[in-house]
């Protein structure tokens, strides 16, 4: 009797579960996974003047499939030094920005994690709040601050520190300021989540055993916070490599980043195979960081439970 009851219930639950997991999985397959396969496909096809502006990979001739795989797009990317330079520049900009976010964000996250309960939620809100206001407008604000007749030059001139306006906008400096500014919360939040869980008794034990604060930090706090550092750094590094808005508004005009290259190739040159090739190359650079991020997040989640 009881056995039959179970038989009736289990399949129903089973199918409901399949629906709950299946609907979002189906959506993401269609709108996330399949698009990448299309990008991959088009990166191997030949550009031509048509709508859409690329040739099909397989054409049928006398009932037989004729593959038309072209590596011209990739050959172009590897022979024109413009692309390679832009590619390396983007990875470098992302790495340096990540380092600056870490150097600025770590002490901030540390101070929040050690603040009293009442302060802590207020400070966290202050960190998250800019995230809720327009990213584009916050980047735009820096134009007003950094341009030649902007606020920063004005203050420096009035203080007599400089006698002519310094070019700050459209330099590496303004690019780094914009990126660090925009991505700092992505570094602080995972670091805070990690630092907040630390057992203060360990630091006290270290102090009791005669460790100086710096030694205790380097030997106890820092090693324990490595998962937080990894999560924050990856959350900053990965999207920064392909950043488009910040370099377009604040970055150099003589050296563009790879995300901008992709966009220009697509919209201005209307070369879809080359744009797709650029996308595939960016993804190749990001596969390892993305897999690492998923590992880190999973282990962070497991230690949380």
């Amino acid at each position: 009797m009881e056995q039959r009851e179970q038989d009736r219930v289990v399949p129903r639950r089973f199918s409901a579960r399949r629906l709950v997991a299946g609907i979002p999985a189906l959506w993401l397959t269609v709108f996330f996974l399949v698009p990448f396969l299309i990008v991959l496909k088009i990166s191997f096809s030949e550009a031509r003047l048509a709508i859409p502006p690329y040739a099909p990979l397989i054409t049928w001739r006398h009932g037989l499939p004729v593959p038309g795989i072209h590596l011209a797009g990739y050959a172009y990317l590897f022979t024109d030094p413009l692309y390679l330079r832009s590619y390396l520049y983007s990875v470098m900009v992302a790495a340096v920005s990540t380092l600056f976010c870490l150097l600025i964000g770590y002490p901030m996250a540390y101070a929040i994690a050690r603040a009293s309960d009442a302060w802590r939620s207020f400070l966290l809100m202050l960190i998250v709040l800019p995230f809720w206001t327009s990213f584009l407008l916050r980047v735009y604000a820096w134009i007003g601050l950094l341009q030649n007749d902007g606020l920063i030059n004005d203050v420096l001139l009035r203080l007599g520190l400089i006698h002519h306006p310094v070019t700050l906008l459209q330099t590496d400096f303004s690019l780094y300021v914009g990126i660090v500014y925009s991505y700092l919360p992505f570094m602080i939040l995972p670091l805070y989540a990690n630092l907040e869980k630390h057992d203060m008794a360990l630091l006290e034990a270290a102090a009791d055993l005669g460790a100086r604060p710096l030694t205790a930090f380097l030997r106890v706090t820092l090693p324990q916070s490595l998962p937080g550092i990894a999560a924050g750094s990856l959350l900053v590094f990965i999207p920064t490599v392909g950043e488009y808005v910040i370099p377009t508004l604040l970055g150099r005009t003589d050296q563009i980043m790879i995300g901008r290259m992709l966009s220009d190739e697509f919209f201005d040159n209307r070369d879809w195979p080359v744009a797709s090739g650029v996308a595939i190359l960016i993804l190749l650079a990001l596969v390892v960081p993305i897999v690492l991020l998923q590992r880190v997040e999973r282990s962070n989640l497991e230690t949380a439970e």
Partner: protein
Amino acid sequence: MRRRGLFSRTALVVGLVFLYVPIVSMIVYSFNNSRLVTVWDAAHSPTLKWYGVLLSDNEVLDAAWLSLRVAICAATASTILGTLAGTALARFGAFRGRSLLVGMTTAPIVMPEVISGLSLLLLFVALQQAIGWPQGMGAVTITLAHISFCMAYVTVVVQSRLAGFDESLEEAAQDLGARPAKVFWRITLPLILPAVLAGWLLAFTLSWDDLVISQFVAGPGSSTLPMVIFSKVRLGVSPDVNALATLMVSVVASGVVVAAVWMRHRQKRRERDAQLAAAANL
């Protein structure tokens, strides 16, 4: 110990100043009569001139209306999909395809926007060729594109909220004979409701704010608000954008204040209820 506390606190204050100076500067200059950032036209300021310019700009108003419609649809759809995915990931244990679902829900968060935008546009073009849908690029394609990256965020928010609860309540309801669907509606959903609401707001903000993906999948003639702002600010500072920024910051800030007051109120009521219950037990 004390000296390091001092260092990190100083860093925190400096960092917060760094985060807020640009926002404050936009608010201040939105009331400046002069077009130049450095010139504070004291004779004619503060002024609401740029707010007038902004609100009589039909291009901006049309774009804001489109962005609002897209954001509401995208946030609602992505909240439903994200809640399903978050529930599956947090409650179903190991199931076939779980790691694929994990991958597909975390990757869109970090995926460079140019790649998401390009791949979605190529998908829409391929679909058009194959089945003749969607017809043309516009509000529909922008909404579809936004749902995919917004739902990833909702999934993370819902999943981590569920991870914070053990399953004992749900198991108890099940032991008392409630069907899984009923358990979800009566137990799970009320528990995760704050996370679902937060996820909706986050999704709305992300959709409202998105520039790059929209630029790829919006056809000619449909411009979202960020697209209009971007074309304005590419040419340099324009004071009516400061006015727009101020309006948007005000909405967010008042929303946060309302939420904080409401949460404090709820907390207090809960404490009072607990006290009453304790008193009744005595």
